[in-house]
């Protein structure tokens, strides 16, 4: 059993351990859950240490483990990660700790079931990022749904039943359509679909993602179009892209704090990860056919998401809608189809996880004290809770993309990629997206102003306590990441360089033959230098 399996199944082992414990031993249950999450994170650091950043070709996907699973269908149990997946695995294990520790006081009943589900969810998420077999990927992808459904449905807010089932059905509807695309790919690689006059390649039946990467460009364009449609529904609902985003505000608002954190930090990344790992490299011509609608939806997501965010009265809902806007950026960068755009896009996935995760954590902390998420109930908190206010400010600034914090690096790289994109051929998209950044600053600063500044006129707020050590530690860990990525993103870009080049080579091979339009003068420069030059 290799390292990836160990990382994947440590949380499951912890969940089983908790199941065996007494319902009333809440302290013990918390301890076990925390220990599991911490051990999992520490073990996952092994990946960061031993990852070969220069690995290309057969070495691109590392820590491979392959076992036979259902031989007669060609289904293998195939694990392996490239740089993109590794960062997301690390993000997941890191947020595993945050989610567990932030639940100590937030979850006050049925703790045993709660931590069991949280850890099972963790296994599902890590498995999804590690799977290199489409069948296996789909299994993990669906496994995630059930724990999340229960987490929202049992420990959520007042409209939790509605939010939970909506989350479940939306995601399920998308993923079953994706399943059909996977099946069609499988048959194309194998014997074809004679009834529709689609000749297959006659290869050995397999669900191997890497094999599909190899045969992607052989798929006829019409078929690619429909396959992409299937993937699009599966992933776009998860991202979520406009107009499939309506489950998100409900799920985010109703979920308990840890649920919102996991949802924002990791689950939404499943969609974007799906695009960059599967849809783009396997279906180059499908991607291009869908490019314009996708870009338009991304831009609508950015602007519409930001505008809707502006008018929210509920803090959690506000942050939820801001995710729609941010994820629009991620998608826009990805479809620039050049290394810069995709690199920025992947980095922004991580950044969004950190910043939005931090914001949800902070809102959760204040909600625990005041049991209100309404902005109108607050005001002048900066006087009462200075530490909280300071950390909230950093998280908000990171989310809106202030230089020297992580959000800026991601957004800047994306805009650079979008402006230079051969696929787009215009800088108009970058300009529209930039408006989204301005709006982002507007809603976050306005939120900050209303909650933290002004007179402390609500007497209920006058007795609020500032952060305790546990809460401070949680947020501060995230702040360290924000600053680190903001000042020195090179380690992340190093990890991303080869995998992103690989994706671009699959989806837009022409990029490496042609020079980009004007600026930057050399292809694929190291972004951090430009950031520093700025």
């Amino acid at each position, binding site marked *: 059993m290799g390292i990836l399996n160990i990382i994947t199944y440590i949380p499951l082992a912890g969940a089983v351990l908790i199941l065996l414990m007494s319902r009333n031993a809440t302290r013990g249950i918390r301890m076990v859950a925390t220990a599991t999450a911490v051990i999992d994170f520490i073990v996952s650091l092994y990946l960061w240490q031993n990852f070969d950043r220069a690995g290309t070709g057969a070495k691109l996907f590392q820590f491979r483990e392959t076992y036979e699973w259902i031989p007669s269908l060609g289904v293998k149990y195939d694990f392996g990660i490239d740089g993109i997946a590794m960062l997301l695995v690390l993000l997941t294990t890191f947020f595993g700790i945050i989610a567990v520790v932030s639940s100590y006081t937030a979850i006050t009943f049925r703790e045993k079931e709660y931590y069991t589900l949280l850890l099972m969810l963790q296994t599902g998420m890590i498995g999804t990022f590690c799977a290199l077999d489409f069948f296996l990927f789909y299994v993990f992808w669906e496994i995630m749904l*059930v724990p999340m459904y229960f987490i929202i449905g049992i420990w959520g807010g007042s409209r939790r*039943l509605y939010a939970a089932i909506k989350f479940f*059905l939306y995601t399920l509807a998308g993923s079953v359509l994706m399943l*059909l695309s996977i*099946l*069609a790919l499988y*048959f194309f690689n194998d014997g074809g679909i004679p009834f529709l006059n689609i000749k297959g390649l006659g290869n050995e039946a397999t669900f191997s993602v890497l094999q599909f990467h190899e045969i992607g460009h052989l798929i006829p364009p019409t078929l690619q179009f429909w396959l992409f449609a299937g993937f699009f529904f599966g992933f776009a609902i998860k991202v979520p892209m406009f107009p499939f985003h309506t489950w998100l505000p409900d799920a985010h608002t109703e979920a308990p704090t840890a649920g919102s954190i996991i949802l924002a930090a990791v689950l939404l990344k499943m969609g974007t990860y799906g695009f960059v790992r599967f849809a783009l490299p396997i279906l180059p011509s499908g991607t291009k056919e869908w490019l314009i609608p996708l870009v338009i939806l991304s831009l609508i997501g950015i602007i519409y998401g930001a505008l809707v965010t502006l008018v929210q009265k509920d803090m959690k809902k506000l942050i939820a809608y801001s995710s729609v806007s941010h994820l629009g950026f991620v998608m826009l960068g990805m479809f620039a189809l050049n290394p810069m755009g995709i690199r920025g896009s992947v980095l922004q996935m991580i950044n969004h996880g950190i910043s939005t995760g931090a914001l949800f954590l902070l809102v959760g902390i204040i909600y625990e004290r005041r049991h209100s998420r309404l902005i109108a109930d607050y005001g002048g908190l900066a006087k009462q809770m200075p530490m909280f206010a300071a950390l909230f400010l950093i998280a908000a600034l990171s989310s809106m993309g202030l230089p020297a914090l992580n959000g800026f690096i991601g957004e800047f790289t994306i805009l650079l990629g979008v402006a230079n994109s051969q696929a787009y051929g215009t800088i108009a998209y970058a300009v529209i997206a930039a408006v989204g950044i301005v709006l982002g600053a507007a809603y976050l600063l306005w939120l900050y102003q209303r909650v933290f500044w002004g007179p402390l006129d609500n007497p209920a707020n006058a007795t609020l306590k500032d952060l305790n050590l546990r809460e401070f530690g949680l947020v501060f860990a995230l702040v360290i990441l924000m600053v680190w990525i903001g000042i020195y993103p090179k380690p992340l870009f190093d990890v991303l360089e080869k995998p992103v080049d690989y994706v671009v080579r699959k989806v837009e091979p022409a990029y490496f033959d042609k020079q980009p339009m004007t600026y930057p003068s050399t292809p694929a420069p190291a972004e951090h230098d430009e950031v520093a030059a700025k």
Partner: protein
Amino acid sequence: MTWSDTIYLLPEIVISIGASLLLLAPVTIFRGRSRAAKWVTLAILAITAISVVVASQLVVDLDQTQTFAAMFALDKFAIFFKLLFIITIAMLVLLSEDYLRGTRYSEWEYYSLLAFALCGMMFMASGVHLVAIYIGLELMSLSSYILAGYFKNEQKSTEAAMKYFILGTVSSAILLYGISLIYGVTGSMNLLRIADAMSTLVTNDALMFGIMLLGAGLCFKIAAVPFHVWTPDVYEGAPTPITAFLSTASKAAAFAIFARIFYVGLHHFRLDWQYVLATIAALSMILGNLAAITQDSVKRMIAYSSIGHAGYVLLGIIAVSEIGLNGILVYSVVYLFATLGIWAVVLMLAKHEYAGEMVDDFDGLHRRAPLWAFAMVVFLLSLGGIPPTAGFIGKYFLFAAAVKSGFGWLAIVAVLMSAVSMFFYFRIVMAMYLRDGGEAEVVTTGGLKFVAAVCLVVTLLLGILPTPLVDEAARSGKWVATRAAALTNGR
């Protein structure tokens, strides 16, 4: 036919004798000892299972031989279904025990009728001749009409039996008329000879009409739209263990003959019936799943959902391919275990009353019976086709069959409707975990626990390690599938 050919019939002979013994037992050796009924029945079923294995070992060339004037075949396809039926009936016996106890209805007769139904189903699985199939079907149907009305003093039960009987006999008549037309045109009732005769024919009205009537009769038996109207009422009114029988064993038997008749006998005209069946499948999936959403009675909900499941299985028949046939076999198994598990949990709540029949009765079940609530979640996920439960493997095959055979639109309907189905399955989950209250007492008995536990283990195990089932299904379906493939190439 020689005397040695009776070996083919060994299992059916054993179960017929056993069923008759069950009728005689209470007036002879087991007079007044109704507790023995369950064990005697289980022993008979065990002997039947052994005889299936023995017969399959003694018959040399399983997949080639037909006997009794080419009426009966003991091929792997038949053996697969026979063993499945025996296991199902054994579990139904365990489910029924406590439900019957305390009522004044005899257990012996009840088990005897189940055994006769089993005999009919085993004939159906082996039938390669329309008359043999029809006789098996009637034996099963007549037994189940009586069983549906077994609580003869309960108005609901009697009403269900009456509806089931009248509609059932009409559909049998339609089926028989279809058979006679096909016989008139092709001159035979053996499926292979029908296939051979058809391969020289061009489309003609009498034949098409015959195929249509035959299909309609079969669609009634599997409860596909628009021949589904009896299902909710009958499922609701029948005693719960009989609802379990109707929704599992009886359906699986109908799937078996459906597959054999359409894959082998009517193969030549597949381009004509594929589209009709595709429409029926789409309607079944849409109507079954949408109508289930509004049901507050669990029995009616499962009834509508079983209409939807009939639609899914039709995907495998429409596909006319090896993968489609494997899908039917795999799906029969996973559907059976998940459904039986659900009925086991429902029966834990029931106990002579109608509790456990409403979704509300499940409120807060996770507090009163955490393990069985969890089991229920697994069964419902399996019916919805969510991995890592066995249901996903079953649906995988059927969806794959639809995609492979070019019925992409049907596959899209199927997957979307399976997403819809999660909505009403999760109503029960929601009641169990997300709501509190509910007074229905949980009475777990040995039999119910055993069935639920077996179903839980099988559903999870086949979901994670499906290889044994998948390979066994491929082996069992081979004869039917290769026969179909040979016919395809011949056209």
